[in-house]
Structures are given as structure tokens and as C-alpha cells.
């Protein structure tokens, strides 16, 4: 009994903090989404007007669809780009020091300012940007590609570069943990490289893929800065909608957008957690 008391005593600061500053704000957001919005304030009279407005407006419903489309694209591309890199680091580099060095190389950009990382894409992608200049010098293209900046494509490129690390890390970690003798014995038994990948490496790396997918998902769905900086405010995600609504004091409406975002995210994470128990992988 005494040790039980000690446990809860140790937990109490953390739990209190989480209840007041994490759980309460989220509940408040759900609650306020049903309040009555007047021009510059909200009244605690319950209504579904804001919800109806959200789903019947092309602008906002369109933003939801766009958010989902960009999220799924970024998720797919980060997996497509990140998996081979993780495979190389985890399976083909046998030297542990070199392995760590490569992973650290991938993580280092994470330690620089997020906004600066977004901003750094502007001189890369522009009409007179680095990519166009290099491609023209090599002679691959004659005229600069203009769709690179201030389009949905530039938002996707920026997001992939920023978040792909969260895909590479967990997958490389899981692949690196695979027992080498397992693969050797499979090879001795005559399994082809493809079979080894499909039957051993892929299933054992799945927890990494899922953790990576969760990371990328929650980050991309909560995004607004990359979209506004790299699309010239042309691509509006749900996050951007929340920002503008708060800016014009439309609290109830911002809350609706927030709840919708939460539902999309929570559904995805819940499905993913059904597949893997996060706590056992630590």
C-alpha cells in the first residue's frame, strides 16, 4: 500500500499538468464547437450551426479534402523515400559507428529552426531558384519550371523533406534490430533476396513503419506554416483555416475545424495502434 501511495505521489505533478493543460483545452475545444457564434464573441448556448456551416461550405469542406489529400500524399512519399534509406542504414551498413553517424546525419536538420527549414526551400524552388538553374545548366530543360514554387507541389516537397526523418528513424531502428543470423540461415536455405525481404525484413520492420506513419500523420495534419510559406497562401489546409478564424475571432468555427482535424487524426492513430502496441516496442 505504501509503495502505491509513493507511485501516485510521483505521478501527481505530471497528471495534474496533463489534466489542466492538455485534457481541459481539448474538451473545451469540443464544447465550444457547439456554442453560438455572434459577430465578435461566442455565447454558451448549444447549437450545431457552426457544424452545418462547415460541411455545407465549399471553402471549408474543400479544405478538409485538400488536407486529407496532401496528408496521404506526404505519407506515401515519405514511406517511399524513407524505406529504402532505412533499409540501407539498418541492413547494409554493418559498422555500428557508421550506422549511428548516418542516422545522426539524417537527424541533424531536425535541430535547426522549423521555420528556417521551410524558408530554405524558397530559393531552391523559385523560377530563378537553384533547381531550375542546375537543370538548365545541365541542359535537361530549356525554360524554368514554374510549378515548383507557390503550388501544392512545393508544399508537398517541403513537408516530405521536413518529416521524412520521422519515417526513416523508426524503420531503421526496427531493421537494425533484426538478427543477422536469421537472414543468413534463410539465405543458406536457398531463399532469394526478394523472399528474404518479403518474408523477414518487411514484417519485422512493420512496427517502425507504423510509428513513423503516426508521427508523420499528426505533424502533417497539424501543419499550416509550410502551406502558407511555400504556397504563397494559395493552399489552405484546415490548420490555416483555424489560424484565420481565430484571427477574426470566429472561435466556434475554429473549434469545429479543430475537432474535425482531431477526429481524422484520432481515427488513423487508433487504427495504427490496433496493429502495433507502442509501449512494447520501447
Amino acid at each position: 500500500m505504501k509503495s502505491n501511495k509513493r507511485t501516485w505521489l510521483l505521478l501527481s505533478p505530471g497528471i495534474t499538468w496533463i489534466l489542466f493543460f492538455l485534457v481541459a483545452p481539448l474538451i473545451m475545444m469540443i464544447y465550444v464547437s457547439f456554442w453560438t457564434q455572434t459577430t465578435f464573441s461566442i455565447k454558451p448556448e448549444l447549437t450545431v450551426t457552426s457544424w452545418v456551416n462547415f460541411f455545407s461550405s465549399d471553402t471549408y469542406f474543400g479544405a478538409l479534402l485538400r488536407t486529407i489529400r496532401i496528408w496521404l500524399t506526404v505519407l506515401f512519399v515519405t514511406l517511399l523515400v524513407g524505406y529504402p534509406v532505412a533499409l540501407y542504414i539498418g541492413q547494409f551498413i554493418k559498422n555500428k559507428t557508421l550506422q549511428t553517424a548516418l542516422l545522426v546525419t539524417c537527424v541533424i536538420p531536425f535541430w535547426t529552426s522549423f521555420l528556417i527549414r521551410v524558408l530554405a526551400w524558397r530559393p531552391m524552388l523559385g523560377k530563378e531558384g537553384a533547381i531550375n538553374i542546375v537543370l538548365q545548366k545541365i541542359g535537361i530543360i530549356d525554360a524554368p519550371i514554374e510549378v515548383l514554387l507557390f503550388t501544392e507541389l512545393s508544399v508537398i516537397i517541403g513537408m516530405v523533406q521536413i518529416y521524412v526523418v520521422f519515417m526513416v528513424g523508426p524503420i531503421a531502428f526496427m531493421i537494425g534490430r533484426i538478427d543477422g543470423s536469421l537472414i543468413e540461415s534463410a539465405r543458406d536455405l536457398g531463399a532469394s533476396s526478394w523472399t528474404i525481404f518479403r518474408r523477414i525484413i518487411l514484417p519485422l520492420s512493420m512496427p517502425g513503419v507504423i510509428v513513423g506513419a503516426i508521427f508523420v500523420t499528426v505533424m502533417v495534419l497539424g501543419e499550416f506554416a509550410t502551406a502558407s510559406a511555400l504556397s504563397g497562401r494559395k493552399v489552405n489546409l484546415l490548420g490555416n483555416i483555424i489560424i484565420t478564424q481565430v484571427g477574426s475571432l470566429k472561435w466556434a468555427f475554429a473549434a469545429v475545424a479543430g475537432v474535425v482535424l482531431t477526429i481524422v487524426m484520432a481515427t488513423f492513430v487508433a487504427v495504427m495502434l490496433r496493429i502495433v502496441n507502442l509501449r512494447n516496442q520501447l
Partner: protein
Amino acid sequence: MDKVVSLRWILGIFTALFVLFLYGPFIVMGILSFQQGPEGGPQFPIIEWSSYWYQHVFGLAPPSRVAPLPIGEALIRSLTLAFATMVVSTVMGVLTAQAFRRPFKGSAVVFYSVILGMIVPGVLLGLGMVLIADQVGVARNWWSTAFVLHVVYTYPFAFLVMLAIFNRFDESVEEASLSLGVSPAKTFRKVTFPIIFPGVLSAMLFAFTLSYDEFPRTLFTGGSDVTMPIAIYGTFAVEIHPNLFAFGVLSTLFSFSLLAIYGILLTLSVRRQRQRASGLQEDIS
């Protein structure tokens, strides 16, 4: 076997391209930060190499049409906020992880609730916090409403790092100390803490850098006194100039020096532990 070798090459080249993709923008940004000023724009070609924009960041350049970056006070606020966040979240992380060393009822609920703090997007938390502050009538400030959200964000990181450390922790050392009659408080200070110190250091590094760079949570809750990332975000809306690139290079260097300090402290603590261990061995033999 040949196929495996060629696959190794293909994947190796792919990884090299990947690293280029990660670092390309930084390299371009670094080059353009030496653009001539104040006429030179944030694009190629470089008119003439100069350190004008670096002087501009520090307010040393003669006044021109490009407004100086609103840093200074914002930087001090950000550093103070990051420091406070680091202290609180590391302490709470250690306490919570300490509690998790013994199995207890409801541990899964507590675990996921804490993790939620790093998962829930900042926009949503910021929004919820603003709604509460608005209803309760609390003023929004970087040291109050923003600070509590920063801790919600960084505390799970500290907790996870400490949990990983405690998982590999040899409890018999602690038990030996306790059974020799050393008080629990002293045991924590003299035995437990030195062992978990590398973890504490990592937790502190995470908390500090995450809070220093934190932006969506602060955007709504920070009030009128802006922190560094908010100040930078404010300059996005208007035309950008190479002074932002110079600032980017400087802040990147700042982050790296933090990493370097972390590395040095970690090496020192590992070395000291090794020396202590070998000293102990000599005492015994």
C-alpha cells in the same frame, strides 16, 4: 550474391541523394546569405560576395529600406522560456519515469495521456488554451499560457528518454545502497542520479531545443510579446530578404553549438564514471 552487391550500390546512391535532398536547401540558403546588400535579393545569381546581411542581423548595417529583424528582446524571451520549460519538464519526466519503474494499475492510461502531449498538434492545443483563457479571463502571455503548453509538449519527450534509461537500469546497485542504511534521498543523489545523468542531459537537450523552436503552440497563446519563432513568422508575410537567410545560418550554428555542449558534457560524465569505476576496482584489489 551479385544481385545483393548491386542492390547495395543502388541503395547507397539513393541514400546519398537523400542526404543531398535533406541538406540542399541549407546549402543554398548558406550561399545566398552572403549575397550583396542591400540591393541583392534572396535569389541567384550572387551579385557580389559580402557579409552585409550578417551585419544587418546584428543591427550593424547602415539603415536601408529593409527593416531589421525584430530580434533582441524576442531572443531573450525565447531563451528564458526554453530554460524554464527545460527545468520543469525534465523534473516531471524524471518523477513520472521513476513511478513507472514499478507496475501499477492504470499505467497504460497514464502512459498514453502523457504521450498525447507530444502527439496532439500545437494548433489544436493552442486553440483550446485560448478558448479557456478567453472564458476564464486570463491574459495571454508567453510566460503563462504559452509556457504551460510548452511543458505539455516537451514533458513526454523527457519522460520517454528517462523511461528508456530506467529500463536498462540495474536496480541491485540502489538496493545495495539502501540495505547499507543510506537514506532514500541520499541514495537518489549519490547512486541513482549519477547513473541516469546522461539520460537527464538528453531530456534537457530535447526540452530546451523543442521549446526554443516551438511555434504553433505559441502563436495563439503567446500574447503580444513575441518569442523568436513568432517574430520570424511575422516577417514571412512580407517580402523576404537575405537577412533571414543569414539569421537562419546563425540560428543553425547556435543549435549545433548546443549539440556540441551536450556531446562534451556527455563524454565528460561517461569518462568520470569510468574513472570512478576503475578507482573503485583499485580500492578493492
